[in-house]
């Protein structure tokens, strides 16, 4: 399948802004991993008084849209306050790029989560919030599944009502996903993405993902 990017994505990929790192960064975070094929590292300088992101740089390992979304997200973050970034949604990055193919929507989620991780770390380091207590709850698990995108539609598992069951047993998580309406070729990706997001939750030691094909009541 040919990938059709918008001119905005192509421009952002071929001429990204804010590439690199900052020697005096006070907020640094990496999202993703080499094995997954996409990873973004953000370096930021946040003013402790005004909470404004004075400077930001990124490094990206991933596809063209990963680089484009990382660059766009960095441009959107620069000069904004920490609180403004917290309200930023992946959808805004996608819109700023005039759209992404459904299979690439997860890139904008990764880019936004990268920004938010860096901010979270900065807040923890500076005593604005308590370091996250590693208590896993069903609500937290459900929240994290908002970031798992069904590549067929570009919508999250939560939005698509695909989360059938969540079970938390201290540091172990079990999640059942309904994949009945989704093309079979995406099963492996959905299972891997779900597990990856669950294992990234603080306090989670073991995550089990079950894919169920038959929707309830059918």
């Amino acid at each position: 399948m040919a990938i059709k990017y918008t001119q905005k994505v192509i421009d952002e990929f071929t001429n990204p802004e804010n590439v690199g790192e900052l020697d005096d960064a006070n907020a640094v975070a990496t999202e993703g991993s080499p094995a997954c094929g996409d990873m973004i590292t953000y370096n930021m300088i946040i003013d402790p008084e005004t909470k404004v992101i004075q400077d930001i740089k990124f490094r990206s390992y991933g596809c063209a849209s990963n680089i484009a979304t990382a660059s766009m997200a960095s441009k959107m973050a620069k000069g904004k306050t920490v609180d403004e970034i917290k309200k930023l949604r992946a959808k805004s990055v996608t819109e700023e790029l005039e759209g992404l193919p459904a299979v690439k929507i997860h890139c904008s989620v990764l880019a936004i989560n990268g920004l938010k991780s860096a901010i979270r770390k900065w807040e923890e380091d500076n005593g604005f919030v308590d370091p996250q207590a590693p208590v896993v709850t069903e609500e937290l698990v459900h929240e994290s599944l908002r970031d798992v995108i069904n590549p067929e539609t570009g919508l999250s598992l939560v939005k698509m009502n695909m989360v059938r069951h969540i079970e938390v047993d201290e540091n172990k998580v079990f999640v059942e996903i309904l994949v009945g309406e989704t093309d079979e070729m995406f099963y492996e990706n959905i299972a891997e993405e779900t597990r990856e997001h669950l294992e990234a939750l603080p306090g989670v030691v073991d995550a089990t993902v079950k894919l169920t094909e038959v929707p309830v009541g059918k």
Partner: protein
Amino acid sequence: MGILVTFIITLDDGLASWQAFFAFNLKKAFSAMSGDKHIAYLDNGDSTQVLPEVVDAMLPYLTESYGNPASLHMLGLAAEEALDESRAKIAELINARPAEIVFTASATESNNIALEGLRRQHPDKKHVLISPVEHASVRNVVKRMEKQGLVELDELTVDDNGSVSADSLREKLRDDTLFVSIIHGNNEIGTVQDLPALAELVHEQGAFLHADCAQTLGKMPVDVRALGVDLASFNAHKLHGPKGVGALFVRKRLKLRRLLEGGPQEQNLRPGTENVPAIVGFAKAVEIAVRDMDTVIPQVNELTQQLAERLLEIPHVRLNGPEVGSKDRLPGNLNVTFKYIEGEAILMSLNYGGVYVSSGSACSSRSLVPSHVLTAIGLLHEEAHGSIRYTLSRLNTQADVDLAVEQTKVAVDRLRAMTAFIPEEHSERESEHAKTFYKQKKEKLD
């Protein structure tokens, strides 16, 4: 530009060849100005340009002899004769009998008719074997059979070049093995299998051997008797023929149950009016490929070897599959991993630079999982993600190779300069961890 145009207009009529010369340069000047740049099509493993000779052979069957080969009148007869001639020609070139050739719409359809046809014909034999480097049109057919509980599926093992281990075949063959399906020339990493040796083992056990020969036909001698195959799949568009036409070789006396119901066309195995123009083009393409093989293949090999040597000079590059230019590898196939960067981004950079290739990375596959062929030969996911396949044909030139090398270096340098994948931070131990991690995930999923 204006000067050139004026110059040509004022040229003396007697200087026709000079005029042609300047017109040619003018065209080049125009294309340079309009941003029209040289294109290097290095994705011939996906599809090829149809040769003019092939188009010429096809055209009369679209506009003049357009009858249905099943019709009784003269136009039907003309189409039937063309069909018979094409069948005889292809049969001869692969050392088969005309009645052993079934025309289909693609190698994918041939694979389906062969494997599902065998299963329906022999419902008592429950065991099937495939190599782990099969094309999706074999892999997904047997996976579906397994999922429906119709067969027990086993995979053979391959070495780190993708060659099927004869020992694993010996071990895994059973009394109730129905068929073994092995891709003759692998589409991603170019591995050519030693089918005659494997065929012997398969037949000793009373099983059938099917081979997907979509990539080998026209690139090396394909003699179905010498290969020892019972069934073999082919197509036209990988060897400068048209898309939408393929063939299945079915050894004489081998019975298949057909998948579609309809008329008695194609030995009663593939109902539907034959695509006569495409079949004529297919036969022409095979004829040309076999005719020119001795001159074309060394030329393709030479360019591919040169491309390989120049790309492997780039630091942190890995060759995937057997030695380029050796008899174990498809002519024109080159697959390399550029470490620490991602294939879709490389592919897109090359695309904007006028070089067309493909990649085995998760991000460039529709299903968002890395190539099963690359992971089967032991690549880590992050290595599969950085893979690029260059496939050359007889139509590629030195200029194509030069552009590919130049653009690849530009893309790799640029992407490495911005990568978040810093090798020191991901030690071998972590890579090992990632490997086990994914293996466990996969097992749970299966």
